């Protein structure tokens, strides 16, 4: 892995981040928006692990941040899916445009 510079890993994670961003902008279905958020969180994890590996190889801080982000992402996904299912029970749809009850 010495031949691959750190910036190439950063390019990959930046590309993944903006793919997730594009999905978040274009999708209007809550589950697919949640998938985009997962992609974004994963790109951040790649960054942390790569920085830990390349710049601070004698420490473990990047690994801990990644682990905590994974735990928070799991909690976030669980709560989001509970909210989505509850919303589906009330509106029969999980499109964000249809959930305008509290909009104004």
């Amino acid at each position: 892995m010495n031949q691959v510079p750190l910036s190439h890993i950063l390019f990959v994670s930046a590309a993944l981040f903006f793919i997730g961003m594009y999905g978040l902008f274009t999708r209007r279905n809550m589950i697919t928006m949640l998938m985009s958020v997962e992609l974004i969180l994963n790109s951040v994890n790649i960054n942390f692990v790569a920085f830990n590996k390349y710049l601070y190889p004698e420490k473990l801080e990047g690994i801990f941040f990644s682990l905590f982000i994974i735990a928070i992402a799991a909690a976030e996904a669980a709560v989001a899916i509970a909210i989505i299912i509850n919303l589906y029970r009330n509106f029969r749809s999980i499109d964000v445009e249809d959930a305008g009850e509290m909009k104004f």
Partner: protein
Amino acid sequence: MSASAVVFYILSFFILAAGLLAVTSRKIFRSAIWLLFSLTGIAGLYFWLQMEFIAAVQIVVYVGGIVVLIIFSIFLTQQSGKDLPAPVRSRAVFSALAAGAGFALTCLLAGRYGFAPAGHAAAGADGGNMGVDASVGNIGAQMLSTSEHGYVLPFEVISILLLAAMIGCIVIAIKTKPGDK
């Protein structure tokens, strides 16, 4: 180009292609499956970086947990055979433009910044190979240590957060009887 560099570029192409298909596919179930492939590719990237524990956690939590949860909720909330509506054309164009501009800016900044290993790593021979000791025992010992670089407080906070999320999920998703309210 050495074999490990080739592996890296193949992995990153796989991750990005699967991610792109996950956000553009018109069938929601296929989109979930592409997300699964992308997350598995990221686990492969962690293996490539020799971070075995993170890779294992990635597979267990994301691939085994979150994607399965997403697939369950897809089946609970909609007909998976139906196509999603296509995004509005102007919105798709402007989102692609915004994402592309952000990506270009980020790449420019990341490419220009010369990353230099800090501290002891700079003194090491050829970098990279001198090794994080990322064994599970080491991670566990530091995570639960109460000394200066210990992570026991964030660990406890995360435990409370997970408990709160669990209770919150039950409260939100619980079925209220039609009588009360």
